[in-house]
């Protein structure tokens, strides 16, 4: 037992160790977009993975018939907000890549509306990323990326591309939209990889 009391205010000043450096906890869900919100009917939606050997394609029914994971995770936006314990449902990229063989180590995610972001393949596998289509028990709202968005919670949230429509395998790591325009090529919130 400690004889030194920090008083009642001590605990509140302790930093939550789930918050990366420079981040502030929020309870709402801020919306950040680089353009208009695309209106995508699930009847028209498709998801593709393009490798050196060809294109793998799923429509909405095929996609939502895959093994679905429940994901409970913290998310961290480069604009300094973090949200803890967010609840998602989606398909793991391990499931999507189960029958895909590729020698290419890098991925460019492409979205409806033209957004792109790059992630190394090994940072998408082994339970690290999903294509999510439910948030907090509801279908994913279009302003948060619905029908489906990439979810890569261990990187800053700009990597979790909203309205994702496909992954393109690449031999080299190449910058996506924000990465070309000032943001970090990798984006680890624990290392504060925010900008170039």
């Amino acid at each position, binding site marked *: 037992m400690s004889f030194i009391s920090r008083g009642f205010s001590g605990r509140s000043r302790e930093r939550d160790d789930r918050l990366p450096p420079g981040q502030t906890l929020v309870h709402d869900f801020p919306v950040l*977009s680089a353009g208009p919100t695309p209106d995508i009917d699930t009847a028209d939606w498709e998801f593709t993975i393009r490798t050196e050997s060809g294109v793998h394609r799923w429509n909405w029914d095929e996609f939502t018939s895959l093994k679905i994971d429940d994901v409970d995770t913290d998310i961290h936006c480069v604009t300094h907000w973090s949200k803890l314990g967010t609840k998602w449902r989606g398909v793991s990229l391990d499931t999507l890549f189960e029958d895909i063989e590729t020698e290419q180590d890098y991925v460019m995610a492409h979205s409806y509306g033209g957004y792109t972001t790059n992630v190394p393949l090994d940072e998408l596998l082994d339970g690290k990323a999903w294509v999510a289509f439910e948030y907090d028990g509801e279908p994913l709202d279009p302003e948060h990326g619905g029908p489906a968005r990439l979810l890569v919670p261990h990187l800053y949230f700009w990597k979790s591309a909203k309205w994702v429509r496909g992954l393109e395998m690449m031999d080299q790591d190449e910058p996506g939209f924000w990465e070309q325009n000032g943001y970090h090529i990798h984006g680890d919130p624990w290392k504060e990889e925010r900008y170039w």
Partner: protein
Amino acid sequence: MQHVDGNSLAGPLAEFLAFDVTMATARCNGCGDTAELARAMVYTSGAGTVVRCRSCGQVLATLVESGDRAWIGFSGVSAIEVRRPGS
């Protein structure tokens, strides 16, 4: 022809970069539309500012700001016409 180094840009580029952005005319790489930047569609969020072509919606320019650093990109613009004072 020999080239000189970038220090030679100090005069002409300083003059250019002082232009009135809204009056400047930019050509969209995507559809070729040429219009004053004041007529572009601008989307602003905490992550940055994205300027899109009024005609095709392609990204013309981006602005990212962080404290004492800023990044200005004109990825979707082939050229910008600037009106020079007194000419």
